[in-house]
Structure formats: structure tokens, C-alpha cells
């Protein structure tokens, strides 16, 4: 039965992809991209990847789309037709696709439990996580402990993006009252936003600390946290939302998350372990794992939240005219 849902979702994805190719209005393309991302997130749920689904929805359908919209607001909406007939690209794409399909022929079948990928390293994670790490969510345990170094790299990547956007777009804090605050028609949105804002932040904390037991973790929490502020900015204007977090604090937060992560690693070195060996952080190895995972997840959340906000503010404050997205 799940096969049916699976096939239908894939078909819908193809439809959305086709629509993205054909549509000329970039705002519409951004909407379709958001749909594409949301559909793939649903597919991830069907395929048991709940953590990934959460992240894809928050990052792909949420933040990426909002950034695309912000970029479109700063540029233009219409796409011109290409000057040349795209024969060469078509050829390249068909050749690449044919190569990939050729490569699938010897792959293990979809869902095959005997596939080598499910036989070699993964069973260790599933078996050892309850005893060695002591948390039920295996994705979190692999992400934050077994392969925590990748996650450090990932935080560094997002930090790089933040630095890059700062370097490219700058960061111009808005002074108050430079924009029209008296939009009567926003009143419903404002009431709802005011109602939701604290709930969203609370929910972000839940996702952060519940990540050991269910889908969630530092990234998702950071993004949800930032989304709360973005909603606030949409309803009340940029300057009002920037009153909530001074931009100097955002810099400090973006750097602090990476530093927390790195320093946990250094600390475990100083305590006689290897880099990021959490066992040495407490007397009991499992407690050490808990402490380490909690610390680094918090670090991740802080950096991600700060960087997403820096990027968003960077785009939106680029706009000279009053009014923000």
C-alpha cells in the first residue's frame, strides 16, 4: 500500500518539476519549488526518514523559498526565453540520465533488506545506540556522536554561508519609523502573528530537546526559531523585528554556536580523549554522551538560527524602499 502512495507522490513530483521548467513567472516558480520541496518531504515520511522530512520542510519549503522570494523582490520576476535552442544541454542531460539508469541496473531492489548498505555499518548503529549512547533516535545518535564531525562541518558550511551573505549584501540595521507602520489591513495578520510568535519559539525549544526521542534536533530547532522571527518581521516590519534581537548579538550567536561545538571537541581532547569523544566529559560514558550531544545540538541550533536570520535580514534590508517582505 505504501508503494501506491510512493508512486503517486513521485508522479506528483514529476508534475511539479515539469511545471517548474515550463513556468516563466519566477514568483510562480518559487511557489512551485516550495510545493516540490513539500512533496518530497512527504515522500521522506513515507520512506521512514522523519528527521529528514522535518528538515526538508523547514529548510527547503520554508527558508529556501522565502530567500528565493526575497531575491525575486530585489531583482525581477520575468524570465526571458533562452537565446539559443537548448540542444546541447538536452543532449548532456539525456546522456547523464542514461548513464544513471544504466547504473541502476545492478542496484539492489528498492526496499531489499539484504542490500549491502543495510548489512555492513548501519546494523551497528541500530544495535549499539541504546547501550552506547542511550537515546532512542538513532539518526540523532549517528548525527551527533558517531559522525559528529560531519555535523561540525555542516555547521561550518552554514556559518560560511552567513559570512558570505554578510560580505556580499552587508547588514544595514533599519532605524525605527522609517517605514509605514500604519497598515490597517495587516491587523488580522498581526494578531495571529502575535499569538503564534511565543508558541513558535516554545515549539523550537521542544524540537531541540525532544530530538533525542523523536524527529528533531539542533538544525530543525534553529530554523523554526528563525521562522518565528521571520513571521514577526513579515507582520510588523523589519525594524520592529530587529528590535527583538540586536544585530551585534546575531554575529555573536552565529560565531558562538560554532565555537561551542569546536570547544566541546577541544575539551574532550584536554580531558584525555580524542576530538569530540564525549565519553570523557562525564564520569559515566553514557552520561558523557548525553552531555556532549546536548551541548553540540544547542550550539548547532544557535548558529543556524542566527545565520538564517542574518541571511534573511541581509536580503530584506537590501531593499531601499519602505516595506519588506
Amino acid at each position, binding site marked *: 500500500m505504501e508503494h501506491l502512495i510512493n508512486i503517486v507522490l513521485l508522479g506528483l513530483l514529476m508534475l511539479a518539476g515539469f511545471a517548474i521548467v515550463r513556468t516563466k513567472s519566477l514568483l510562480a516558480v518559487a511557489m512551485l519549488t516550495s510545493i516540490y520541496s513539500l512533496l518530497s518531504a512527504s515522500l521522506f515520511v513515507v520512506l521512514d526518514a522523519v528527521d529528514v522530512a522535518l528538515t526538508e520542510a523547514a529548510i527547503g519549503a520554508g527558508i529556501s523559498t522565502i530567500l528565493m522570494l526575497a531575491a525575486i523582490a530585489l531583482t525581477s520576476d520575468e524570465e526571458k526565453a533562452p537565446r539559443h535552442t537548448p540542444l546541447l544541454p538536452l543532449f548532456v542531460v539525456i546522456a547523464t540520465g542514461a548513464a544513471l539508469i544504466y547504473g541502476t541496473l545492478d542496484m539492489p531492489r528498492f526496499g531489499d533488506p539484504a542490500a549491502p548498505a543495510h548489512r555492513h555499518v548501519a546494523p551497528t548503529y541500530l544495535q549499539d545506540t541504546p547501550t552506547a549512547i542511550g537515546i532512542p533516535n538513532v539518526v540523532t545518535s549517528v548525527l551527533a556522536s558517531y559522525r559528529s564531525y560531519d555535523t561540525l562541518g555542516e555547521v561550518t558550511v552554514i556559518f560560511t554561508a552567513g559570512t558570505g551573505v554578510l560580505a556580499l549584501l552587508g547588514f544595514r540595521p533599519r532605524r525605527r519609523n522609517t517605514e509605514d507602520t500604519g497598515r490597517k489591513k495587516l491587523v*488580522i*495578520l498581526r494578531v495571529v502573528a502575535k*499569538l*503564534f510568535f511565543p508558541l513558535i519559539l516554545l515549539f523550537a525549544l521542544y524540537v531541540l530537546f525532544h530530538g533525542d526521542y523523536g524527529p528533531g534536533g539542533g538544525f530543525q530547532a534553529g530554523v523554526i526559531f528563525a521562522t518565528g522571527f521571520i513571521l514577526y518581521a513579515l507582520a510588523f516590519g523589519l525594524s520592529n523585528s530587529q528590535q527583538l534581537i540586536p544585530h551585534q548579538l546575531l554575529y555573536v550567536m552565529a560565531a558562538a554556536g560554532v565555537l561551542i561545538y569546536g570547544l566541546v571537541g577541544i575539551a574532550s581532547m584536554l580531558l584525555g580523549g580524542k576530538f569530540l569523544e564525549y565519553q570523557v566529559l562525564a564520569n559515566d560514558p553514557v552520561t558523557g554522551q548525553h552531555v556532549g550531544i546536548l551541548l553540540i545540538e544547542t550550539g548547532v541550533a544557535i548558529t543556524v538560527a542566527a545565520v538564517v536570520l542574518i541571511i534573511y535580514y541581509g536580503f530584506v534590508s537590501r531593499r531601499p524602499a519602505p516595506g519588506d517582505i
Partner: protein
Amino acid sequence: MIGLAFDILSWVSLLIGAIFLLVGAIGVLRFPDFYSRLHAVSVSDTMGTALILVGLMIQGGLSMVTVKLLLMFYFMIFTGPTAVHALAEAAIEGNVKPFARKTGQ
């Protein structure tokens, strides 16, 4: 016995909810102009959503799942109409004209 009654109740609720969703979607696809389509959306946004969530809540029983569903219900009952309202307003501002029957249309 009670369990069966609850099951039937939830199934009925889910089924009616699904019908509302389908009707709304057909409306979105088939209605002739933007504002009437918006009307169709609100059918699935309110009744469809509510009934499906209620059906699931009955299935969930008294547990954390139901609390989450309630929270979702709360969220959706606010966001749906707000979004639709904002949409309608933006459309009016963007000068989308209501449908008027013209010859040949």
C-alpha cells in the same frame, strides 16, 4: 463495544472530512474565477481539516498524540483563514477582477 463505537465515529468523521477535502479540491480546479476558487479552498481549510483531525483524535485516545493533534487544530484553524484572508486582500489590491459572464465564456 465502546471501542467499536469510537472506531465507527472516527471513520465517519474521517470519511466526511475526506469528502470535504475532495469537494474543495474539485472546486479549486473547476471554479471559473479566483474568488470562487478561494471560496472552495476555505471548505477544505476549515471543515475538511477539522473533521479529519477530530477523526484522528478519536483514534489517538487520551495521549500525547491527541495533545499534538489539538495543537495542530489550534494552529490550522488560525492560519488557514488568515492566509485566505490575506490572499483575498492581496488579490483585490492586485486588481484581480471577479468573474463576470461574458459571451463565449
